[in-house]
Each structure stands twice: as C-alpha cells, then as structure tokens.
C-alpha cells in the first residue's frame, strides 16, 4: 500500500473534479436545449402535446434522479448497446435538467403579459415567430436568476452518477477513502470542492435576482 499525503488526496480530488465540471456543463447545455423544446410543447397550441410535456415534467420531477440514472444505465443496455457510464449519466442528467428547466421557464413565459401574445398574433405572427421575436427575449431577463440557481442543482446532481460508476468527484472520494482510510479528510475536502463550485453560482443567482428586482421597482 502506498502512502497518501494530504496533498496527494487533494490533487487527486481536483483532477476528478474536472469530470464533475465537464458533466455539469454537458448536462446543463444539452438539458437547456432539450428544456427549450419541452417548453415549446408545454406552452404550444396543441392540447395533447401540452399534456405530453406536462406528463414528462411530472414524471421527471416526481421520481428520484438516482432511479432515472439506473433506468438509463440498464435501459440502454437492453437496447443492445454496451453503455459506458458517462453516456448513461449524460443522458439521464440531460433529461432531468430538461424537465426542471422547462418548468422554470414556463413560469417566466407566463409572466409575460397576455397583450404581448395578442399584439403579435394580430401582426400575423406564427407561434414560433411570437416565441422567437416577442416572448423569449422578454422572458429571458426574468429567467436568468432561477436558471443560474438551478445550475447548482445540476452540479450537485452529478454526484449521483458515481453510483452507476462514472468516476467524478464523488466516486474518486470513495476510491480514495478505500485507499487511505481517512474518510473524514477526504469527504471534508470533497464537500469543500463542491462548495467552491456551487457557492459562486448561488451568490450570482441571488445578486442577479436583487438587481433585476431593483430594476423592476424602479419603473
């Protein structure tokens, strides 16, 4: 058995943290694109598509992320792929993020006064044109603080991918604990690294919220 100094532990954890960051980025970007599609369906004109989007959101918000990861991991392998853990992790996190972002953004779209829809409709704009030129640019402003706030949940969500065997920060910490028998130090460091990743995001979200609120009351 080799000896680990505190620096060795920290160095290995920081190396593993790169994967946490990468997976968070992938999940957030893909989830954002997917969430936008779900949002379109959820606020669209077709009633059954709205219902489908609602069911999808309810399903992903009402079940544990861990179960979704298991289903992605074992479900994909049923279809015949030999699924690497990162693919299942990325897929499940994307679907999960998409559901939450779609619901957050729906609130933002609904905060736009109805007159905006009616005015653009009277200019013979189609649904996609209304969304693209009228609604989304206005909803965007309202949507930024809660979206940044949710990114914290995504970073924390990636910790669960360790359970299906994706080697990121949490998995690395379990492996290091097994090698060093120093769980207090290792998990303490891990908590601090997650904190260092998430806290700036939380603070940014709060600051943006305050800034936008002030602007709102200024009118």
């Amino acid at each position, binding site marked *: 058995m080799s000896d680990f100094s505190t620096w060795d532990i920290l160095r290995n954890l920081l190396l593993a943290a790169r994967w946490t960051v990468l997976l968070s980025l992938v999940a957030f970007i893909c989830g954002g694109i997917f969430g936008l599609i779900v949002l379109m369906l959820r606020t669209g004109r077709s009633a059954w598509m709205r219902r489908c989007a609602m069911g999808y959101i309810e399903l992903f918000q009402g079940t*544990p992320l861990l*179960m979704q990861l298991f*289903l992605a991991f074992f479900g994909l392998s049923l279809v015949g792929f030999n699924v690497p853990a990162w693919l299942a992790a990325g897929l499940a996190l994307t679907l999960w993020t998409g559901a939450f972002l779609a619901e957050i953004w729906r609130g933002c779209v609904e905060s736009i006064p109805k007159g905006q829809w009616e005015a653009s409709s009277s200019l013979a704009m189609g649904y996609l044109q209304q969304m693209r030129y009228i609604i989304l640019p206005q909803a965007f402003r309202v949507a930024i603080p809660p979206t940044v706030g949710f990114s914290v949940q995504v970073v924390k969500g990636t910790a669960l991918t360790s359970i299906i065997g994706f080697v990121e920060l949490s998995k690395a910490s379990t492996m290091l604990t097994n090698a060093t028998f120093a769980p207090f130090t*290792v998990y303490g460091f891990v908590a601090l690294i997650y904190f260092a990743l998430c*806290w700036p995001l939380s603070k940014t979200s709060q600051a943006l919220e305050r800034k936008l609120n002030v602007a709102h009351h200024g009118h």
Partner: protein
Amino acid sequence: MAYHFDFGSILDYTPVLVKGIAITIELIAIGAVIGVGVGIVCAWARSFGPKWLRPPVSAYVELMRNTPFLVQLFFIFFGLPSLGVKLTEMQGAIIAMVVNLGAYSTEIIRAGIQATPRGLIEAGASLAMTPLQVFRYVILKPALQRIWPALSSQIVIVMLGSAVCSQIAVEELTFAANFIQSRNFRAFETYFIVTGIYLLLSILLRQVLRSLGWWLFPKKVAR
C-alpha cells in the same frame, strides 16, 4: 436477439418492496418533522436571534445548500466515526436528511417571516406579549402558512433524495430495488416498477401535505 420483458418476477419480492416503502416513509416522516423543526429554530436565530448566533447559522445553511446530499451522507456516516461518533445506518440517514432539510427550510421559513407586516409585531408587543410569544403566535404561524407550498415541495424533494440512503445500506425502497435486481437479474423491470412507486409516493406525499396545510391553517392569512 429480442429482449422479453418479465415484470412478473418482481411480484415474488413484494414483501421486500413493502418493507422498503415502509422504511422510506419512516425516513421522510421523521426527517420532515425534525428537519422543519430545525428550520424554524434556525430561521428564528437568523431573524431575531442574538448577533453572535447569526454567522454560524448562515454558514450552516450555505454549506448544506451548496454540497450534494450524497457527500453530506458519506461525511456523516463514514467521516464522523473517526471523531468517535458512531451511528447506525438509520441514524446516519435521518441525521443527514434533517440537516439537509433543516438548511433549506431555514431559508424558506425566513422568507415567510420577512413578509410579516411590521405593525403586527408592534401590535403583539403592545399587548404585553413577550418576544417569544410574539414569535410563536404572531409571526410564525402566518409565516408557515405563507410558505407552506414551497416547504411542501422541498419535503417531496428530500423524500426523492432519500433514494441515496441505499448507498449506506439503509434498507429503504432503492435498497430493495438493488436487492431484487441482484436476485432476479431483471434490472430494468425492477427499477421501472420502483420508479413508478416513487412517483406514486411523491404524488401521495404532496396530497398529504396539502391536506395537512388545510388542517393546520384553516383561515386565510393577510399577505
């Protein structure tokens, strides 16, 4: 080769599932009651408590809200024993859920407290109520009523998060799922059904909390 789904093989393990459901419900019932209690105390400390108490409470809230539940659980269950604190799996899971929910509910309840009209507190004081009485009767109850929907969703989120407690061998629903799929080798079907059970549990829990809200707060509150 086509895959044949076999959901029937899970029926043999119904008692395991029922036990898992019972433990998940036990976890969230205990965790929610104590967690909201912690939230109320910390929200009081942050809004009205002595000055020296506020920074540590803020630090606790920020630390819990910005680290994953899994890491909190591992730190409590694997890390604390090296300080001499030995916990059973169940104790570890409940403590982790309490400190996690406590931090989130502190923020939620504090938001409700801040929305209390100033005049109400002054009116309470002018009736010769002690500060604690004012907090208990004038501030807390309407505050809880205001934020009840947000608090309910947070409790549902923590219930779903309790799936992670299987990782320290608490025999809750996810643990039951892992156990069953290791016996019948029907991983997808098992997790599919257990996911459905979680969905039902979260719908049920939301309904229970809504009814509890009606029962606790029968009158409308001034907003």
